[in-house]
């Protein structure tokens, strides 16, 4: 069952967070924010708060309330989720003089998110697009996973069985994500870690793409050696059912 508040968190910290990736890896997006120093506060009634800031060509999405130039209010998690789906608009409550950034660069960044996260067969044939799509899908999925683990009742039930430590999710010769567990709470960061307690690895970006898009199941991939897990496996075992919930939340 999809909880709208948890879905809002997944959209906020899974999908929108990918703007961090876009402004670094997509030239058009980099140009949109070049020289800009601005922060947007998102406040969802009955849902999450987050702050998306742009500075020196980089973006950062932070949990909670922080200093901002623009503040956007959403009446409910449903309202926010509809905004992400392009079916509703936010309510600006601060920063009317900066509204141009919202209607201009930010809207274009949001459009680019949709471009990369809603692939077509033709687009995926392009090597660069394929890489961006897979990496962004992975980042969205594993960041959303943390929100589900921390806020969805079934996810929390699994998460509380996790032992403390770092799970490294890595693509061979590719990107890594570290999921850290402490007292049943999960956080994710887009980097490797030096002392993981368990490692879940994909042999290639292609395998990761298939897994993330439900074109290949993890059991088959592991049996065939396309995926592997090592270390303290209960970390993987209890995260796997949560990962299974991600598709419902990001659908």
């Amino acid at each position: 069952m999809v909880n709208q508040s948890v879905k809002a968190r997944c959209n906020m910290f899974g999908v929108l967070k990918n703007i961090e990736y876009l402004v670094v890896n997509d030239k058009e997006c980099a140009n949109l924010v070049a020289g800009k120093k601005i922060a947007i506060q998102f406040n969802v009634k009955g849902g999450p708060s987050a702050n998306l800031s742009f500075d020196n060509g980089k973006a950062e999405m932070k949990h909670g309330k922080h200093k901002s130039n623009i503040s956007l209010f959403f009446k409910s998690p449903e309202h926010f989720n509809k905004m992400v789906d392009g079916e509703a608009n936010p309510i600006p409550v601060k920063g009317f003089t900066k509204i141009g950034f919202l209607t201009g660069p930010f809207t274009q960044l949001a459009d680019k998110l949709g471009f990369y996260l809603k692939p077509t067969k033709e687009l995926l044939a392009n090597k660069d697009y394929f890489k961006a799509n897979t990496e962004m899908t992975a980042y969205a999925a594993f960041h959303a996973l943390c929100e589900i683990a921390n806020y969805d009742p079934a996810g929390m039930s699994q998460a509380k069985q996790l032992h403390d430590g770092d799970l490294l999710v890595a693509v061979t010769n590719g990107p890594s994500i570290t999921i850290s567990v402490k007292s049943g709470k999960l956080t994710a960061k887009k980097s490797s870690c030096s002392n993981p307690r368990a490692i879940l690895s994909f042999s290639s970006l292609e395998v990761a793409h298939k897994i993330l898009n439900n074109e290949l199941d993890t059991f088959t991939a592991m049996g065939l050696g396309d995926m592997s897990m090592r270390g303290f496996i209960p970390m993987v075992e209890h995260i796997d059912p949560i990962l299974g919930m991600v598709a419902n939340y990001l659908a």
Partner: protein
Amino acid sequence: MEVYKNDKSIELFKRAVKVLPTGIPGHLGPVQSQFIPTSDFPFYADRVKDSHFWDIDGNEYIDYMCAYGPNVLGYNNDIVDQAALAQMKKGNCMALPGALQVDLAELLVDTIEIADWSFFMKNGGDATSFAVMVARAETSREKIIRVEGGYHGVAPWTQGRGNAGVATADVSNNIIVPWNDVEAVKRAVEANPGEIAAFISCPYDHRVFQDNVLPAEGYWQAIRKICDDNGIILIIDDVRCGFRLDLAGSAKYFGFKPDLACYCKALANGYNISAVVGREGLKGAASNVFFTGSYWSSAVPMAAAIACITEMRKINAPKIMIERGEKLTSGLVEIGKSYGIDMKISGVPSMFYMRIANEDSLFMQQEFCAECTKRGAFFVSHHNHFTNCSLTDADIKKTLEIADIAYSIVAKNNPDKLRK
């Protein structure tokens, strides 16, 4: 020493994934079995005898998983197989149960301390589900107390909230308490007065991935008293431990008497049968629960069970398996020590759990098991292992030779983790 290859296993697995979900469904699959890395482990067995199996690539292994427990006298034990074959010639699945059903029930009643009656089914999960239903039928209550990490099969009620295919309602009557925590059980009972039908647990904590933990002094006696004081049925899931600790029941080994006990793995040396036994007062409730299956009265597994139990009694099977386990594990610990590797053994020796304790993950453990397996000693890294009565001194000697090589490789690859 030869390092095995598994080319035929891999080729067959490639065919399998096209027509079987996960390729090998269930706990024998390479992922569930923690074959890490998968390339170092066989996927398919070709034949078995005593403590050995041969995979489809022709590699021979000394098997310490014993088919996850059913191999108790030795694979293809002649006494058991001859009894099964003789019954097969007479009949197996028939319109009526064979007379052996009564013989087997009488034998279990005579063997297991608390048994006044027996009820037969096929798998351990059937037995635990039936036992819970009997408890509910007897008490007219719905909730059960389970122990964290306890494995009672794969029925939805035994699984976790959030697991694929499990509804919240399936697990809503479960109250989970930590192992060895009498106070937690007391609190659960006090918080749910008159609502708890059963306390179900394995005889000791033999969960996967962690050191196994025996009951604390007085634990079971305290649980028995709480159950008695509150009208709660005490169920022992002896599916895995059964007959490997004490033929009269693992409860007898730990000095208490449950109301119901579930058996499966070692019951018939690999023939498919499980059982619930219980005290006289619960026979009525067991009669009222409608629980059956197409093959539950099949006579061949019953013939095998009678032969198996009779033989286990004759040779004192638990004593043999415990002694074999002690010999093997003491050797593993000693050799490990010589390399600076702390191999920690836990649980009862006939179903020992081993873990390299130099680190809090299982990287070295997985490497050790893989290096042993690809040289012919079949170990997995997550689960307790099993000894069986056919395990010889020569088997143990060869296993320790293999372990020596495996330790040397693990030590070489992990110099910074070794103990001085």
